[in-house]
């Protein structure tokens, strides 16, 4: 055997790879033409792409934007291209896009749904982006309010509002710009007051949103919120006198009694004495894309607490509770949404005390909520399962009782893990809201039919549905991307 010893005296420099490996050619060779089969596939796909685009692009872009009716559109098309095929008539979108977005919501009040949406985003930032600081959150919030105040019709009151919000925006904005996060942390460590937790606004939002959307006096919203306050107070102070379980029951009972019996009278009394409020809007007037968003948000928002309870029930050792929860979840997941919507439109009133009558949108909201609660329960169950046992034991050993442990330790973590799943459920529900057109609600698809029943637009088709598909795609796609981002973050992020 020869001498094996070898020592490199001079290290080799890094070399560029051979030309076929890099640059455009390298990329093409690796990604498109790595074998002859791939080459053929590439060429075929190019043909397919060309075929599809050559059909769609001219239709989309060589189109009529300003026809007032289908007949006008056709006239313009004939005048311009000599034929009516292969060209879109976007006039219908041009004329009706506001209606497609807002339904019959009074056009002078469009600001309210928009504000609701913006505030929704603000309310969700502390949950969705936990890296955003409190200051940032409050800044966004006051900014949103300021912009709204600017958009409102001016009166003395509004001027005061504007000034107030402008001031707040400036102060927080100035702080944000001049004071770095680290410095602020320093200040807080030294005892400076912190801004209130932005989750406070998130908690207010569920009461603010219905008021903004439906209008009317502010009292029903406040009275509904007051039910929670009552429940909380009973929970807080009842503990001293009763056992945990009794307190819980008492709290729920107190809140329910308040809602069912008292709050109606109180709120109408207050409304007649102090009619503070904004113009009321009937739920009939809700429609279009706004309705889809509203239904989705309400269903997800309301189903969250129900889903939590169901998930806990399904995990529980109590056979009866478990059985009831599993039964509910499997039943709802086993039937198509459309049958539940039939229940909403045809049957729900039958199950209510004689004479009760709440409008179809509310009924649909109830059924959608039950529907999403079942799916939500499964998502949250996944989140619960992801928690290590040690968390329960840690809580137990500190003497926390079941509900305290759930509320303080388990749920905050389980919900955080579940956020991607919740977003996916939301996307699903959001897409499913289109089904309400089948029971005669004017969501986008229902409106499309109504628009086609208008004499001027009778016979229009593709433009409407293309527009609707586009709207859904934009929203759902961005949300699904976001949930994928969250999932990745949760996987890599240290706990």
């Amino acid at each position, binding site marked *: 055997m020869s001498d094996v010893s070898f020592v490199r005296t001079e290290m080799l420099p890094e070399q560029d790879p051979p030309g076929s490996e890099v640059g455009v050619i390298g990329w093409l060779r690796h990604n498109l033409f790595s074998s002859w089969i791939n080459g053929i596939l590439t060429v075929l796909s190019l043909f397919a792409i060309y075929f599809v685009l050559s059909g769609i692009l001219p239709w989309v872009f060589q189109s009529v934007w300003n026809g007032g009716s289908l007949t006008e559109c056709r006239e313009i098309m004939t005048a311009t291209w000599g034929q009516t095929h292969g060209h879109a008539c976007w006039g219908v979108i041009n004329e009706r896009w506001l209606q497609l977005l807002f339904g019959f919501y009074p*056009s002078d009040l469009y600001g309210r749904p928009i504000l609701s949406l913006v505030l929704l985003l603000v309310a969700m930032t502390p949950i969705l982006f936990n890296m955003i600081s409190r200051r940032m959150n409050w800044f966004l919030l006051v900014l949103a309010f300021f912009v709204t105040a600017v958009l409102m019709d001016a009166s003395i009151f509004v001027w005061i509002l504007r000034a107030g919000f402008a001031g707040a925006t400036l102060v927080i904005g100035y702080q944000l710009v001049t004071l770095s996060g680290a410095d602020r942390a320093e200040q807080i460590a030294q005892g400076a007051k912190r801004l209130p937790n932005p989750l406070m606004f998130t908690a207010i939002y569920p009461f603010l949103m219905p008021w903004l959307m439906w209008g009317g006096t502010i009292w029903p919203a406040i009275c509904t919120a007051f039910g929670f306050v009552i429940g909380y107070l009973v929970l807080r102070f009842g503990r001293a006198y009763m056992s945990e379980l009794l307190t819980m029951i008492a709290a729920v009972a107190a809140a329910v009694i308040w809602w069912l019996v008292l709050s109606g009278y109180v709120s109408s009394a207050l409304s007649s004495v102090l009619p503070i409020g904004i113009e009321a809007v009937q739920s009939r007037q809700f429609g279009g894309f706004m309705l889809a968003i509203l239904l989705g948000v309400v269903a997800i928002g309301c189903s969250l607490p129900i889903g939590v309870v169901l998930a806990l029930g399904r995990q529980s050792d109590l056979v009866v509770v478990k059985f009831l929860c599993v039964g509910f979840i499997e039943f709802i997941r086993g039937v198509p949404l459309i049958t539940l919507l039939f229940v909403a439109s045809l049957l729900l*009133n039958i199950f209510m005390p004689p004479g009760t009558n709440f409008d179809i949108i509310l009924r649909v909201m109830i059924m959608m909520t039950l529907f999403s609660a079942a799916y939500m329960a499964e998502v949250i169950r996944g989140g619960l399962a992801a928690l290590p046992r040690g968390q329960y034991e840690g809580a137990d050993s500190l003497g926390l009782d079941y509900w305290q442990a759930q509320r303080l330790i388990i749920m905050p973590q389980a919900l955080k893990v579940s956020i991607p799943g919740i977003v996916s459920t939301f996307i699903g529900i959001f897409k499913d809201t289109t089904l309400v057109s089948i029971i005669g609600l*004017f969501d986008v698809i229902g409106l499309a039919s*109504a628009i086609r*029943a*208008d*004499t001027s637009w009778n016979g229009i088709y593709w433009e409407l549905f293309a527009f609707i598909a586009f709207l859904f795609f934009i929203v759902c796609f961005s949300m699904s991307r976001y949930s994928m981002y969250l999932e990745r973050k949760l996987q890599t992020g240290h706990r």
Partner: protein
Amino acid sequence: AGTLDDVKARGTLNCGVTTGLVGFAAPDADGVWGGFDVSMCRAVAAAVLGDSSAVEFVPTTGKTRFTALASGEIDMLARNTTWTFSRDVDLKFTFVGINYYDGQGFMVPKELGVSSATELDGATVCIQTGTTTELNLADFFRSNNISYEPVPIETNAEGQQQYLAGACDVYTTDASGLAATRATFEAPGDHVLLPEIISKEPLGPLVRHGDNEWGDVVRWTLNALVTAEELGVTSANIGEMSAGTNNPEINRLLGTEGTLGAMLGLDADWAKNAIMSGGNYGEIFAMNIGEETPIGLARGLNAQWTNGGLIYSPPFR
């Protein structure tokens, strides 16, 4: 409390209409509803509340319309609904009258060369489901012993699209609907309505059983519109007529004589309000579906009885 009191207390009338049928009910770009059925709702609202815009239009589908009415979600249904025995007796609704005499007909492309429905053996027929049409159709083809292929569809717009594309040879629905649909075609002349009318479709507004006061209000509002046409009262001349005429029936109708309004539990000028909201029956017809409109329906059976039609109102006395 009766429906009338409810409506007055609420300040708006909840009126069930279709989710959209050309000429009969459809929202425009501002969300304002218009159409033949819609005018009926507006007239009732004007009669009861004095305000023809105090209507909440509740779009209903073939499936939901009866439930909506039975459950009290709507106060009246003005949605080209055929008056049948079972709907009246079994489903327990009161049809207050007939505002449109219709019948199920067939439309075919001219190039098929079909001149009678009995020649349609083996044809593909588009039917709008959720009405009596599919039952009539089944009966018709059965009794003529010929076969057909039904294509059920949900909305008129859908049916029109399928028919135009040739996905069915025949489109069948109420003749009014056929005419209305044909009117919006690019080339209406290429399609013919076959002579057979295979059913009687008396369409009219309906209310729940058991609330006769309310039924009367709707019934007599309809009658008021009809009578107004008969008596020559129009939205144009109603101002001067309500000052008093020498026709006592007009005076009773417009409330300058007698207490008809009070008997109904309404204001004296209830009928005047109703007529002013959209004109008399003839005006409503002409404006929404008449020959001047793109829909271009002739009065036909729906002419006043004085002109050889079936539209006839009991006297106001």
